[in-house]
């Protein structure tokens, strides 16, 4: 699975671009929705509530699904950032591997394994995307319900009594919106967690590689000292005497 993720990750600009396009599209839809709302509220209350039903339904239903569509776009941008971090990580690991490959096999130190949160990062990112997709699907369902509610004149909606289908739909819209708003923030939190994991892994790998480099320098210096010391000792020792290390 990690190999497959490494293959997909370099396509992160496409992901970021798609996310940006979704957010831009949400802005355009929002602009047209505001125009519909302006036209709706320019009429008198009596006309608004009895004849302009389609306009009201369009405004209310768009207000229900548009924020979740926007958040899906933002989630894709954040997901793209996570994929970019994965590319940086893969490159760091590959470069480290190439440098180590130059050493003889017996002197080659083991490559440090990436920490557990580094492996988990793409999964957390995908979980965040799943949250955004679920939120959008639920919001679309609510929007279609809002359309059918606001197809009725406002006085009829207000008069709906306990146990009626109309009141049940109103109840469902309010009740679902109550948890759906924090749910989309849960998706944002999941994406941010993936970014934090990626950055933490990059910091870990950079530190581990620097330590390895420093150890290599120390090993090289100490082995040179060992080479020089026996030579100088044997130069001072009289002929016939053996030098013990």
């Amino acid at each position, binding site marked *: 699975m990690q190999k497959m993720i490494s293959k997909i990750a370099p396509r992160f600009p496409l992901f970021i671009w798609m996310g940006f396009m979704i957010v831009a599209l949400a802005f355009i839809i929002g602009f047209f929705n505001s125009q519909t709302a302006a036209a709706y509220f320019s009429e008198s209350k009596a006309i608004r509530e009895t004849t302009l039903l389609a306009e009201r339904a369009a405004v209310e239903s768009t207000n229900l699904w548009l924020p979740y569509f926007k958040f899906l776009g933002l989630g894709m941008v954040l997901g793209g950032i996570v994929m970019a971090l994965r590319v940086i990580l893969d490159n760091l690991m590959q470069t480290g591997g190439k440098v180590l490959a130059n050493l003889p096999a017996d002197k080659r130190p083991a490559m440090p394994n990436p920490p557990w949160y580094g492996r988990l990062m793409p999964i957390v990112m995908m979980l965040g995307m799943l949250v955004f997709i679920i939120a959008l699907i639920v919001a679309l369902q609510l929007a279609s319900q809002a359309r059918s509610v606001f197809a009725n004149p406002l006085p009829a*909606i*207000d*008069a*709906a*009594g*306990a146990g009626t289908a109309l*009141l*049940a739909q*109103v*109840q469902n819209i*309010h*009740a*679902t*919106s*109550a*948890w*759906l*708003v*924090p*749910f989309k*923030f*849960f998706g*944002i*939190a999941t994406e*941010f*967690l993936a*970014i*934090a994991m990626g*950055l*933490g892994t*990059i*910091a870990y790998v*950079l*530190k581990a*590689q*620097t*330590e390895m*480099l*420093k150890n*290599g*320098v120390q090993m*090289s*210096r100490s082995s040179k000292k060992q080479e020089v010391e026996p030579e100088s000792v044997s130069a001072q020792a009289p002929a016939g005497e053996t030098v013990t290390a």
Partner: protein
Amino acid sequence: MNANEKPYQMKVFPVLTVLGWILIGLALIIGLVVLTPTAVNYFGANSKEVRDAAEAGSQLLGQISLLASIPLWLEPLTFLGVAFFICGIALEFSVIPSLVKMRGDAMAQAFPILVKSGK
């Protein structure tokens, strides 16, 4: 910064990440456990006429005041959670320059050895 010691940013960022999770998780739980059942009771069992006629101190008015007031602080709370996450990420970013500098120092030490061994 010593290569063996952990920079303070790397110690603080997990705390900020966990705090962000707690706040956003709390907002989700409040939405699920408090707001949703209240909205179900308020909108589901009463027509608008009944809701509008609710007297001060009635259960219905208590429910609508809850539905109107909680989201006013709940949304800023979720943003506070997001801010914790962003601060944690900023701290992680701030540690990268010093790590790159350490790597540069190590490279500076390694290069003379590499050049000598090349001869």
